[in-house]
């Protein structure tokens, strides 16, 4: 290789990906304890957000705390769905089904048919959703690709139709008076008031720490945020484990994974069960905050919204899923004034994203890496041939240079053969 340093591929990268890569690498280079402190600070900021009500971020039309609660529910859902879609590569169009099962289990156990305490109903709901995930996955995960999408789509609809038609589950009217989590009122925290342009502590607008009431959504947000943090921590552990690597192998090439000794079916089932589990958490939280639920809240449209959060953010990256969920849940609330235009703007934004950033806003590091390598090799092909490229190291026996033909695209893969 000579000194002919041409433009680095980095220069041709879009501003967003270059910003991300520089930010990302800088973050990785900071020491462990600093990363930890940064995360703690970020979490603290998120906890304080509904009290600070910062002017640009806050939602003028709706209660900011309520919006934040909704956003954190979407984040939970997106992180859970990301396990299924992003990690294991299983297209699930019926994720809302698990969300509904989580919500309804809490409803049935605490109000409709029994009077379990809320704290007991939550784990029960999670067990039920996990079991439903396994029950759906057991027969369906044997089919691959498009068929799985169709089957899961059907699952979501079956859940909704069952809810509408089952009197035992309250049919179309749904379930009401779902109790709140137990409160432990300790002290009052005032909010900030920005109406005069400068932040003033407003003692007339306070949140009780910690009391789950109908009027104040902030404690619900805190609970949901805590669950988000726990789920994210668990997600990180699992992704970096042997399980995460098994999912990755299965997603990239199922047959090859099987040939390496990965029991792919079991790992796909595990992804389904864990995804359902997280969806169940989100559903239970939703039901608890709403205090009433009906089948209207669990339509196909919601499933698609969930999926678009994951795809938009960047499948396979937990922070991508978080950002995707924030975009999907928060932006429409922030710009409520344009209500009529919301869906149109959302659609256009999705289309633009599909064209200019198909891998999502924040794709996984390895997707970015693969893309960069490709750009680099393309640059080499365009420029003069790299002397390295034709070289070829010989094996232990052969010493002569060998030329290496590129694989023809889609070399015949006959079914038999």
């Amino acid at each position, binding site marked *: 290789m000579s000194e002919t340093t041409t433009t680095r591929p980095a220069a041709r990268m879009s501003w967003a990906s270059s910003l991300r890569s520089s930010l990302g690498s800088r973050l990785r280079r900071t020491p462990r304890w600093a990363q930890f402190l940064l995360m703690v600070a970020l979490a603290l900021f998120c906890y304080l957000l509904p009290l600070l009500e910062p002017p640009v971020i806050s939602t003028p039309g709706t209660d900011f705390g309520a919006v934040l609660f909704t956003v954190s529910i979407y984040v939970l859902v997106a992180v859970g769905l990301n396990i299924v879609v992003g990690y294991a590569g299983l297209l699930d169009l019926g994720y809302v089904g698990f969300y509904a099962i989580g919500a309804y289990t809490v409803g049935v156990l605490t109000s409709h048919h029994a009077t379990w305490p809320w704290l007991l109903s939550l784990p029960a709901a999670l067990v039920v959703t996990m079991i439903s995930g396994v029950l759906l996955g057991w027969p369906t995960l044997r089919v691959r690709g498009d068929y799985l999408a169709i089957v899961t789509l059907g699952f979501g609809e079956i859940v909704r139709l069952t809810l509408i038609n089952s009197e035992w589950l309250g049919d179309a009217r749904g379930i009401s008076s779902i109790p709140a989590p137990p409160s432990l009122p300790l002290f009052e925290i005032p909010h900030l008031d920005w109406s005069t342009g400068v932040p003033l502590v407003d003692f007339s607008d306070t949140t009780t720490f910690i009391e789950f009431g109908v009027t104040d959504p902030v404690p619900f947000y805190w609970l949901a945020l805590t669950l988000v943090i726990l789920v994210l921590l668990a997600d990180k552990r699992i992704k970096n484990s042997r399980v995460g690597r098994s999912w990755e192998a299965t997603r990239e090439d199922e*047959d090859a994974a099987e040939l390496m000794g990965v029991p792919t079916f079991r790992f796909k089932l595990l992804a389904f069960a864990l995804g359902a589990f997280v969806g169940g958490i989100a559903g239970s939280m939703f039901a608890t905050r709403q205090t009433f639920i009906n089948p209207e809240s669990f339509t196909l449209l919601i499933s698609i919204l969930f999926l678009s959060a994951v795809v938009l953010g960047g499948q396979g990256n937990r922070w991508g899923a978080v950002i995707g969920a924030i975009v999907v849940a928060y932006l429409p609330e922030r710009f409520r004034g344009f209500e009529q235009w919301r869906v149109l703007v959302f659609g256009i934004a999705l289309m633009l994203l599909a064209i200019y950033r198909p891998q999502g806003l924040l794709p996984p590091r390895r997707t970015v890496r693969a893309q960069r*390598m490709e750009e680099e090799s393309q640059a080499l092909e365009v420029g003069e041939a790299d002397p390295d490229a034709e070289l070829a190291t010989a094996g232990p026996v052969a010493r002569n240079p060998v030329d*290496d*033909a590129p694989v023809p695209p889609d070399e015949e893969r006959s079914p*038999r053969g």
Partner: protein
Amino acid sequence: MLLEVRDLSVNYGHIEAIRDISFDVPEGSVVTLIGANGAGKSTTLKTISGLRKVRTGSIVYDGQDLAKVSADRRVQMGISQAPEGRGIFPGMTVRENLEMGAYVRRNRSAAALAPDFERVLTLFPRLAERIKQPAGNLSGGEQQMVAIGRALMAQPRLLLLDEPSMGLAPKLIQQIFRIIEEINAQGTTVLLVEQNAAQALRRAHLAYLLETGEIVRSGTGSELAGDPAVRAAYLGGDV
């Protein structure tokens, strides 16, 4: 006998892909299945490694019937396959691909895998240069090396190779075959499926010719290479 295949039939949907084939793979040998595209060679390998279901017949490995053994268990038992074409994990780096090969090993610590990395990178020095690159960005030949190296990381007793020469330049084909001999010399039994009959027969101790799902000829590599019918159909007349 390390592997005994008896009266094996496999369906692909409703089509009968292979019909009543029987063959043996003695421990320490290189055995090849040759035949045209669509003859059922790949299906045979996939059935041995457990990706396809047996319809009738049996596969006995090391004295044990594989009928009820799942694909992942077979890898633990020492059967490892390098899949055809680009059966690598494109998003993982070369190193990660090789690590995946050691998936079933009990001890996967860096120290335990070091000798295996050493072995693979000595067989394929080219991979050492590419070790940190995503495997999907490698050339066809390099991907083939990754696939074979990855299969070796499981420390198999029986290595199944599906068309290792597919899509490669002639010189590289020579090299891949020399490496296969080298692997065999190091003590691994090799079952090789090939369209490139000339190269495969030259190196095989035992060879079987598959035609539309049936074994029509068998013998030592040189016997088949000398067979007029084989020469006419698969070796381009005179070799």
